[in-house]
């Protein structure tokens, strides 16, 4: 037996109380890991955004359209920007599933010829891509979206328009996979021409933005300046940003929410610390006479403090490990998968980052130690003769 063994054995003394405390710590760690994973997943689109992609939209707001003819200044028809390898226009379609109307997924009408040149991280088998380009009402859907709605290549699917009212019919021509975490696996893209020809004349010829892929990301600033300068004298001026900036700008709208989640994750751990501190304090109070005995036997105040802190550490780590063991099946393989499939636009990659697990485990140990400081001080300052007189 060693000194720390006694501390660890004390954990088993009041099994129900220990079990409840461990469950409390585990729940707190589970909630912490969930929130931190959520925050990481939410910001991962910006963190992992392609460095070589730019987005050009209306200078006032990205909701307002650009004239489709602007693409001609990118594709060589009227000119080309030096350093731009590929460009494609797109417009937000905003339709939904006619039955499962609450299942959000991003859907765009895109320039079929070049869209996947700009987005090489969306991987479409070449033969499927070729078929899609030839199919006027064809759509390319993300793997997660196809899985959720049970769509297969060749299926006819119908969406209910919201921005462009009516029932829209598509044929699933291809299913894409992704190779980066930034890309939503639940997108739905189809031919801009199909949308355009279905609209009344006044609404035709409009696009939402032009996405470009540049050959050298270090030259992005110069290219951005060149693009926006080009359209400076036009009726509609543009604003070009990197994909990362665009994502960050999008996230900025949710910054208060992200900050709130940050605070909540810390508050949860503080509550955990108080629960643990209370349990340890109760244990110390009950074992006052035992500490008196140990002191009589020659144990010093620092030994007593080690017993108390060791016990708290054992409970904290036990709860931390249990919380992490629960986190993987519940968060990683349960809720995470569901969120990726159903809210892929916000959480394209909802997996527990290894650093979050390590931080959770480290914090469960650290906070347990902090929680034990006051009870340990109280125990180590006991007077042996007084302690021996205590009952219980």
């Amino acid at each position, binding site marked *: 037996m060693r000194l720390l063994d006694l501390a660890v*054995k004390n954990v088993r003394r009041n099994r129900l109380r220990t079990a409840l405390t461990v469950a409390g710590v585990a729940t707190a760690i589970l909630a912490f890991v969930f929130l931190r994973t959520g925050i990481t997943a939410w910001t991962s689109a910006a963190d992992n955004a392609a460095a070589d992609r730019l987005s050009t939209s209306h200078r006032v707001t990205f909701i307002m359209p650009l004239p489709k003819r602007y693409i001609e200044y990118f594709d060589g028809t009227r000119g080309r920007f030096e350093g731009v390898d590929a460009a494609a226009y797109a417009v937000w379609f905003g339709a939904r599933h006619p039955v499962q109307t609450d299942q959000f997924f991003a859907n765009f009408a895109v320039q079929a010829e070049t869209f996947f040149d700009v987005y090489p991280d969306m991987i479409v088998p070449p033969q499927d891509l070729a078929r899609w380009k030839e199919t006027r009402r064809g759509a390319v859907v993300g793997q997660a979206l196809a899985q959720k709605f049970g769509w297969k290549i060749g299926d006819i699917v119908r969406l209910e328009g919201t921005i462009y009212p009516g029932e829209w019919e598509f044929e699933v021509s291809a299913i894409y996979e992704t190779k980066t975490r930034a890309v939503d696996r639940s997108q739905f893209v189809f031919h801009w021409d199909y949308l355009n020809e279905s609209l009344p004349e006044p609404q035709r010829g409009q696009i939402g933005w032009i996405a470009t892929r540049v050959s050298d990301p270090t030259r992005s600033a110069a290219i951005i300046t060149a693009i926006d300068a080009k359209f400076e004298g036009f009726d509609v001026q543009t604003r070009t940003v990197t994909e990362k900036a665009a994502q960050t700008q999008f996230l900025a709208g949710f910054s208060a929410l992200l900050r709130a989640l940050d605070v909540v994750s810390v508050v949860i751990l503080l509550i955990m610390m108080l629960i643990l501190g209370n349990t340890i304090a109760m244990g110390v109070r009950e074992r006052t006479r*035992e500490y008196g005995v140990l002191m*009589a*036997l020659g144990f*010093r105040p620092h030994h007593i403090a080690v017993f108390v802190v060791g016990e708290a550490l054992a409970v904290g780590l036990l709860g931390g490990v249990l919380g992490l063991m629960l986190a993987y099946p519940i968060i990683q393989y349960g809720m995470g998968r569901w969120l990726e499939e159903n809210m892929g636009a916000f959480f394209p990659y909802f997996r527990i980052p290894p650093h979050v697990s390590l931080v959770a485990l480290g914090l469960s140990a650290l906070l347990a130690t902090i929680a034990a400081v006051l009870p340990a001080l109280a125990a180590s300052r006991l007077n042996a003769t007084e302690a021996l007189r205590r009952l219980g």
Partner: protein
Amino acid sequence: MTQEQAADETAGKATPAVPPIIECRGISRTFWRGKERLDVLDDLDLEIPTGAFEALMGPSGSGKSTLLNLIAGLDRVTRGTIKVAGHQLERMNDAALAKWRSQTVGFVFQHFNLIPVLTALENVELPLLLTRLGARERKERAAIALRVVGLEDRMHHLPTQLSGGQEQRVGIARSIVHDPKIIVADEPTGELDRQSADDVLNLLQRLNEEFGKTIVMVTHDPAAAERAQVQRKLDKGRLT
């Protein structure tokens, strides 16, 4: 030896055959309860020879346990000097006193005070954790101590699996495992039935006679006190 003879010796009327292991000179112990002053021990002199087995008796509040705590180095005198096993306890700091206790004194408590999550063997091993002994030797010594008290077949039992008498014998094994010079016992039979009490007293007598341990025992029980070589009575903080 009667209390009168012991008093005579203390007063210097007779020369002890062996040098004293405990020498208290004019010791007082005062406690404060709020503004109320409690003189629990008052200018007390006491000598206990090496190898003695003495009983301290007296009514509740007479200062028996306080005196025992002072002898064991658990408490400090307010006035006077106290020399135990060659050490002036009032001059030692807390750390030195704790180390001295761990080497010199064995404690036997009324309520046994075993750690409930440890087996008998682990409870007995506790004082040895403060030594430089290796795990194997600690276990061997603890097993020997349990053999001395006749509980070698209960060494892996938890305190809850032992009778009161057995628990106190484990307590005695814990008090001797580090081979202390002095054993202090505070009402060691107070929680036991007659038979168990006799077993414990036999054991203490044996430790005194066969192993030469100096034993100071506080008791209310006249039958227990009879087992000691000397019975001293305390009343209102003075030896009578």
